C-alpha cells in the first residue's frame, strides 16, 4: 500500500449558497489508481477543481504530502506535482505533437528561443515513458481522439507528476483504445504515481482501478477497494436505489402504429420489414456499417427508401425528406445530440420549442409565455435538472441535454419517435430515467424505435429486436433473445467472414 499523497478532509464547496460538495473525505495514495464515480452533477468536477486549486473549498482541509494547503492556487497544485487532463485535453490542434508536449516545459524554463530539436527530445522521452508511439512532427488535428489524449498524457508526464487526474478519459475512445490507455496507466502506477480517474462505467474500470469512491449529489456515499464492489452495489451507490433489471414487456396490443414493408435503399439496407404496435419498443442493433443507422434514418427521411412501403397509423407515407417526416409527426433523436440535436448556446426553452415553433406563432412574434410554460412542463415531466428554463443547454450535463432533445420532439406530439444511441455517454441513473420515459411513451401510444449498441439497453427495454448484418435483417425477435445470443449472432457471422 502506497503512502498517502493527497488527503481531503470534510471538503465543502458552496456556490451562491448551494452546496456542490457536502463534506468529502478522500485519500489518494502513490502507486494506486483511484476511481471517482457518480452520476451527472454529483460533484466530481468540483472535487477535481478543488484538488487542482482552481476552486477554493468553502470548508475542509487539503493535505498534500502531509502539508496542509491554504488558499491553494492552480500553480501551487502544479508545483506540488498535480497534473489534470481535462475532458477536452486542452491541446493545440494546429501545432505538432512535439510542441504540444514540450511547450509547457519550455515556458516553465523561461525559454526565449525555441529549439525544435530539444522539443522533439522532450516529447520522445515522454512518449517512451508511457509507451506512446506518435510522429512528433504530426499535427494534432490529424490525430485521432486517442492520439490527442496520449499527447495530453505526455504533456502531463513531462512535468514529473506525483498525482495524475483524468476527467472522464474514456468518453470518446473505442474499447481497444481504452485498453491501451489502461496499459499506460498501469505503467504509470508502477512508477509510483497516484492516479485519480473519473469514470462511471463499472465494467470498464473494474480491471484497472484499485480503489473506488462514489459520490452522489455532492455527498460521499462509499469508498473501498474495487473488489468490494459488484454491479449491484455500484449501481445502488451511484443512484441511491436498486434497479430491477426487469425487462420491458408490454401488454400485447393489436393496435398497429407502424408497418414497414420490404423497404430497400441500395448500399444502405435491403428488404427490411417490421411492424410496431401500440406499446412496443423496437430495438435495432448491428455492427457499425451494418446499415442499422440507415434504417432508422429511413424513418426520418434522411436515408429514404427507394422501394417498399411504410405505413403509419394505417396510411401509407412517403418519407423522402426530413420535411416529410416532420409532416407525418415523426421525431428523431440523433446520436450526436450536441451538434445535431441541440442549439447548445441557446436556452432550454428555445431548444424545447425548436421543432414545434408553428404552435406558438401569433400575428406578431411568438407566444413566449406559452413557450415557457410548455418548457417547464416538459422539464418537470422528464426530470431535467437545471437552474431555470433560461440557461443555455451547454451548461447541462449529458443526460439532461438528452432529455431536452427528447422534450423538443415530445413537444411536437410525435406519433413515432426514432432514437439513435438514446443513452450514449450517460451514467446509470440518467440512463434508467431515459428508459423509463421511453417505456411510458410507448405505453401512451407513441411508436418508439431505437438503434443501440448497448446490448443491456436493448434486451431490457425493447420487446422487439431486429439484428442487422450486411444491410439485411438476420434475426427478428420479440425478445426471446439474451445478450449472449445477440452477441453470438453479431459475432458469429463475423467469424464466417474472416474464414472466407
Amino acid at each position: 500500500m502506497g503512502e498517502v499523497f493527497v488527503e481531503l478532509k470534510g471538503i465543502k464547496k458552496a456556490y451562491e449558497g448551494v452546496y456542490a460538495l457536502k463534506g468529502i473525505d478522500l485519500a489518494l495514495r502513490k502507486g494506486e489508481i483511484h476511481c471517482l464515480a457518480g452520476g451527472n452533477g454529483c460533484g466530481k468536477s468540483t472535487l477535481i477543481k478543488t484538488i487542482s486549486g482552481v476552486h477554493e473549498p468553502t470548508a475542509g482541509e487539503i493535505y498534500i504530502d502531509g502539508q496542509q494547503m491554504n488558499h491553494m492556487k492552480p500553480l501551487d497544485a502544479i508545483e506540488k506535482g498535480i497534473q489534470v487532463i481535462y475532458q477536452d485535453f486542452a491541446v493545440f490542434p494546429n501545432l505538432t505533437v512535439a510542441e504540444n508536449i514540450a511547450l509547457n516545459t519550455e515556458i516553465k524554463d523561461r525559454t526565449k528561443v525555441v529549439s525544435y530539436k530539444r522539443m522533439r527530445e522532450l516529447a520522445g522521452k515522454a512518449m517512451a515513458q508511457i509507451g506512446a508511439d506518435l510522429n512528433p512532427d504530426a499535427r494534432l488535428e490529424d490525430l485521432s481522439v486517442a492520439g490527442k489524449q496520449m499527447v495530453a498524457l505526455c504533456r502531463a508526464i513531462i512535468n514529473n507528476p506525483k498525482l495524475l487526474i483524468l476527467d472522464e478519459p474514456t468518453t470518446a475512445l473505442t474499447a481497444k483504445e481504452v485498453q491501451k490507455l489502461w496499459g499506460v496507466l498501469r505503467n504509470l502506477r508502477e512508477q509510483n504515481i497516484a492516479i485519480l480517474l473519473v469514470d462511471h462505467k463499472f465494467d470498464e474500470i473494474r480491471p484497472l482501478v484499485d480503489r473506488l469512491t462514489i459520490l452522489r449529489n455532492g455527498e460521499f456515499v462509499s469508498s473501498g477497494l474495487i473488489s468490494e464492489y459488484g454491479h449491484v452495489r455500484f449501481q445502488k451507490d451511484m443512484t441511491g436505489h436498486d434497479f430491477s433489471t426487469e425487462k420491458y414487456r408490454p401488454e400485447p396490443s393489436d393496435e398497429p402504429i407502424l408497418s414497414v414493408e420490404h423497404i430497400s435503399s441500395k448500399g444502405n439496407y435491403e428488404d427490411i420489414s417490421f411492424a410496431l404496435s401500440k406499446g412496443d419498443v423496437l430495438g435495432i442493433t448491428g455492427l457499425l456499417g451494418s446499415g442499422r443507422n440507415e434504417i432508422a434514418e429511413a424513418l426520418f427521411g434522411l436515408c429514404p427508401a427507394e422501394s417498399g412501403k411504410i405505413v403509419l397509423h394505417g396510411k401509407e407515407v412517403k418519407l423522402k425528406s426530413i420535411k416529410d417526416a416532420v409532416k407525418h409527426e415523426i421525431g428523431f433523436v440523433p446520436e450526436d445530440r450536441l451538434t445535431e440535436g441541440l442549439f447548445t448556446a441557446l436556452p432550454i426553452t428555445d431548444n424545447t420549442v425548436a421543432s414545434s415553433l408553428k404552435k406558438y406563432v401569433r400575428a406578431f412574434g411568438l407566444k413566449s409565455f406559452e413557450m415557457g410554460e410548455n418548457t417547464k412542463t416538459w422539464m418537470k415531466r422528464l426530470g431535467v435538472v437545471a437552474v431555470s428554463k433560461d440557461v443555455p443547454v451547454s451548461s447541462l450535463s449529458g443526460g439532461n441535454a438528452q432529455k431536452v432533445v427528447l422534450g423538443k420532439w415530445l413537444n411536437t406530439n410525435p406519433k413515432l419517435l426514432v432514437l439513435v444511441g438514446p443513452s450514449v455517454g450517460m451514467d446509470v441513473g440518467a440512463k434508467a430515467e431515459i428508459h423509463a420515459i421511453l417505456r411510458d411513451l410507448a405505453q401512451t401510444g407513441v411508436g418508439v424505435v431505437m438503434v443501440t449498441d448497448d446490448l443491456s439497453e436493448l434486451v431490457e427495454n425493447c420487446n422487439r429486436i431486429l439484428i442487422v448484418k450486411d444491410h439485411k435483417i438476420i434475426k427478428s425477435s420479440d425478445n426471446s433473445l439474451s445478450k449472449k445470443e445477440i452477441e453470438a449472432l453479431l459475432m458469429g457471422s463475423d467469424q464466417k467472414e474472416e474464414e472466407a
Partner: protein
Amino acid sequence: MNRTKSKAFFTSNTMILVYVILAFSVVVALRQPAFLSPATPINLCRAGLFTFCFALCEMLVMITGGIDVSFPAIGCVSMYVPMVLYDRGILPDNGLYFVLVALLCGLIFGLLNGVLVSYLRIPSLIATLATSSIASGFLAFAFGVKDLTAMPTAFTKIYEMNLVTYTDPASGLSYPLTVLIFVPVVLAVVMALILRYTMGGRGLYAMGGNLSAARIVGFPVRRLQFTTYIVSGLITSLTAVMYVILMHNASTTALMGNEMLVIAACVVGGCSLSGGKGTIGGVLLGTLLITLVQNHLNMLGIDTRWQTLAVGIVLLFGVLMTSLQAGRGKGRV
C-alpha cells in the same frame, strides 16, 4: 511514408496556390508576350509592396484568431497627420520626424485596438471596425479631404533610390525597382524568425489554436494579443510612410477599401479565419496571386471593372481550398 509525405506536399494548399499562379501567368503570357518582360516582376513588386506589408499585419492578427479591418484607416491617419504637420510647417524638413510622428499614430491606434480586444474582450472584428471608424472619422473631422503632396526632401531622395532600373528597349519606358522593397523583405524575414523560433511567436499560434489551452499552458495570452495589435499598428504606419514616398501623395482616404484585398491575400495564402494558421511564405504567394489578378486581368483583355469581382472569386477560391482541406483531414481520421 515518404511517398505519402511527398504526395501531401504536392497537394498542399501552398502548392495548389503555386499551380494557380503559374497557370495564370502562362495564360497571360500566351496572350501577351510582353508579360515575360523584366518589367512585370518590377511592376508586381511595386504594386504588391503595400498589400504584402498590410498582409503581414493581418496575418499576425489572424494567427491569434482575430481579424483586423482597421489598418487602412490607421494607415491613412499615419500618413496624413505627419503630412499636415509638415505642410503647416510644424514638422521640420526631416524624414525622421515624419516617420516618428507616423509611428506614433500607428502606436496610438494599435494601442486602442489592443485595449479593446485583449483587455475589454471585444470581438476583434467589432473592435477594429470601431477603431477604423474613429480613425477615419477623426481625419475627416480634423482635416477635410484635401490631398497633400509636399513632403520632406529626404523622401524625394529615397524615391529616387532604385535597386535596378529596367528600360524597355521598344517603348523607352523605364521601370525602376525602389530600395524600399527591402523593408518588406526584412520585415518578412524577421517576422518569420520570430514566429518560428521564439516562445512569443509560438504563443501566437498556440492561442489561435486553443485560447484556453494556451492560458493553461502558461502563455501570457493577453500580453501577446496586445503586443500583436501594437506591432500591427506600427507596421501599418511604416507602410503608410512608404506609400507617401512612392506615391508622392497623401489623402485621408488613400488606403481605404484595401482591407478586403489584404484579407483575401491572407486567406488565399493559408491563414485561417478561425486562427492558428498562417505562414509568411503563404501570405507572399497569396499577395502575389491577388496582385497578379489585379494588375494583369486587363492583359487578358478583361475590363478592369471586373477587378473587384475577380478578387472576390480569388477570395472564394482561397476559403474553399481551406475548407476542402479541412474536410479531407476529417475524412482521414
